[in-house]
């Protein structure tokens, strides 16, 4: 994937081409086929994945029964906890490409290297991530409040 393609994604909007180039020295653009496993529960938590295109299903399999936890979309990320601590955390769930997927992966080690040698680049990316997450959270909160209001309404109607 070339710099012009990367630049199209919101998260990289604030980076100059030279900064994207530097970022790509630390991160890898990865592509997965539909249904391809990205990581499995119990694997070492090797770094942060940011979804550029496509969807990811997060699931667990307690006692062999598969339970889907979430479908992550473009702009969402997973594995952020692996960026903290001693890097010995293991994945608490499995991830599968839900459709053809393009993602950026930065390992815990490379994240720390970028924090040292390109902290400004990192701060620009992280602020965009904060923004994207805040927008999605506010949308979710509104949806939640609507459903709660509908429940109250439905209960009132039943009583009446």
């Amino acid at each position, binding site marked *: 994937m070339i710099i012009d393609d990367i630049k199209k994604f919101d998260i990289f909007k604030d980076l100059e081409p030279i900064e994207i180039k530097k970022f790509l020295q630390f991160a890898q653009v990865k592509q997965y086929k539909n249904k391809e496993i990205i990581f499995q529960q119990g694997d070492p938590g090797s770094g942060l994945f940011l979804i550029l295109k496509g969807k990811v299903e997060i699931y667990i399999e307690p006692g062999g029964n598969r339970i889907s936890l979430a479908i992550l979309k473009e702009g969402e990320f997973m594995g*952020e906890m692996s*960026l903290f601590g001693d890097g010995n955390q293991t994945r608490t769930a499995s991830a599968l490409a839900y459709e053809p997927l393009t993602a950026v992966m930065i390992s815990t080690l490379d994240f720390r290297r970028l924090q*040292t040698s390109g*902290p*400004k680049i990192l*701060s620009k990316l992280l602020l965009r991530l*904060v923004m994207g*997450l805040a927008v999605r959270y506010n949308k979710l909160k509104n949806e*939640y409040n609507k459903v709660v209001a509908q429940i109250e309404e439905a209960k009132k109607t039943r009583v009446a």
Partner: protein
Amino acid sequence: MLVEDLRKFDLFQDLDDVGLKKCLQFAKHKKFQSGTEIFAQGSQSAGLFYILDGEVEVLQKQEGGAEKVVDVLKAGDFDGEESLFGDVEERETSLRAKTLVRVFWINTLEYRRLQNSGPMELSKILLRVIIGLANTFRGKNGEFGKVKKELEELLGPAEE
């Protein structure tokens, strides 16, 4: 506010004394007594504020002029992040301290200065913001699933 006080908050956990001092050069710590208006509806956001502790009511004027509480923000929540990109728009809600509230506040200009002179400190803070927000988001997502199920049980599944 002193370095020792800042250290108590999760947000600053990854910073050393030098980093904390640097942050205090650019950002302000503000305290609002219960009932104080923090921002008025229609005013412009002029920076990011992050709630360290306490609760903040989000109010919106209704038809007829009465204000209604539409949300309550707690420690770890933040507001005004769009203004850091220069997207300054009139606020659609006002904010009022529900309890004694302490916030960490940084205006757009000082944020850019911090990005230039303390990008590593900034990236560490932003990463903590992301972790907190991601956890809140996932928690809310779980609650949303539960209330949706409750609504479906009351009304029957939504028609496609």
